[in-house]
């Protein structure tokens, strides 16, 4: 029997891919089936920029916080140079204010374990199960001495707990190991660091999503036929970027 993933040129899965399929299949199909990547909005660039500044401050504990902020802002300006997101300026201020909040908390953990030479991040690859591609991911920060993987999430409002989608993402980092995973939710005003529990249960959920995606792909080898089965939720944040909205209208006609 033909592998539906291979038929559609999908050779590995990611937490982002599976979470997108779970939340907004129309957005998943556009990104991963048609390979029309949704433009990252200013919020996503904000996260990357803050991570750059925080990373600089963690790997060099003596680096002044102002220097880390400057690194984050420079990265944000680079990433958003062509962004049409109306929130671009507002998010720049979030970047500036969040970096010191995150550093104050995370510098307590010590210097993270650097990735292997020549790599920018620690790469992980986990088998999802028979007949499924491996799950591939990259760790934000890893402390070998603590056995700790930490994923930094930036937000304008710190949540009270780890979301289900984030839990599914984190479980892939540590499942079948004796390591722990934490999520740091950093805002311009505060930070909360939550520890992921029930890893095996979240992993089972992740495997179930992958199985269902496989069944969906098995319906047809014709991408357009699969697209024709889906309806986008036009109110979803997946379409908030103007370019993403335009692509949605082009592909789905709505």
């Amino acid at each position, binding site marked *: 029997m033909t592998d539906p993933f291979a038929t559609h040129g999908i050779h590995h899965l990611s937490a982002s891919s599976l979470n997108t399929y779970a939340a907004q299949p129309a957005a998943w199909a556009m990104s991963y089936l048609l390979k029309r990547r949704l433009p990252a909005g200013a919020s996503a660039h904000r996260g990357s920029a803050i991570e750059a500044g925080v990373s600089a401050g963690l790997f060099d504990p003596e680096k002044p916080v102002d220097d880390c902020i400057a690194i984050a802002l420079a990265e944000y300006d680079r990433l958003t140079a062509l962004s049409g997101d109306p929130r671009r300026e507002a998010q720049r201020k979030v970047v500036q204010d969040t970096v010191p909040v995150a550093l104050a908390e995370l510098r307590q953990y010590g210097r993270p374990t650097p990735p292997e030479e020549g790599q920018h991040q620690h790469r992980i690859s986990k088998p999802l199960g028979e007949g499924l591609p491996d799950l591939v991911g990259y760790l934000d920060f890893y402390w070998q*001495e*603590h*056995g700790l993987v930490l994923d930094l999430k930036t937000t304008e409002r710190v949540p009270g707990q*780890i979301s289900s989608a984030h839990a599914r993402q984190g479980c892939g980092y540590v499942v079948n190991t*004796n390591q722990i995973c934490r999520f740091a939710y950093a805002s311009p005003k505060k930070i909360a*660091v*939550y520890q992921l529990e029930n890893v095996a249960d979240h992993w*089972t959920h992740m495997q179930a999503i992958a199985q269902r995606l496989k069944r969906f792909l098995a319906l047809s080898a014709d991408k357009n036929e699969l697209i024709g089965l889906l309806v986008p939720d036009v109110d979803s944040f997946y379409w908030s970027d103007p370019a993403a909205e335009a692509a949605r209208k082009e592909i789905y006609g709505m």
Partner: protein
Amino acid sequence: MGLGLSYSSSETASSDFLPLVSYNAKAGRLKYSQRVEVNGRWEKQEEDVSFQQPAFVADMENIQVGYLFFKSGMAPVRALVKIGNPLPPVPVGDYGVDERGRPNQPKQGFAMRVLDGNRTVREFSSNAASVLGAIDALHNEYEAAPERAQGMLPVIQFTGATEVKNKHGANYTPNFQIVKWVPRPAELPAGAPAAAVPQSVASAAPAQAPSLPPPTPQAAKPLPF
């Protein structure tokens, strides 16, 4: 020789107050713990050292074997004798019931003094089958080694844990290995004469890492499955 495990409450009380090394087979984590006085109250301090891959001199000559019972909220039950002696009877008592409703009983275990990389004498004890197997293998290696005849002690290093699945779920077997042999240090007195402190032991352990800050408590939330 294997550990030939079994025990009685004949050991010294002083060992109860040593800082401890403990291994959680369910999580695959090695911890150092000690009781410290804070504002007039005794508190337990724990440090997860699993990923520091600590090394310590192990007093395998005087390892104690027998029966141990650990339960949160009650003093450990110990019936131990020096290895090589007949095992003591299993301690009898009311130890409650396990999660399947069966009466709890002390299990075969061991207790061993070790000297860590910071020159702190600790007691490493466990009654977990996965730990016993690992220590038994080390003890066999110790007994067969020519260094033992010279009165030396092994420096054993915790190098990680291996997941083992059985009908009760997943456990992690600790991985230990003998990385060198040293003369018996003064901190671990025994029949053998005290020897020069093994300087190499201190260097075998990495620099102290910052302790892991506690996570933020999460709001209660039902699982999505």
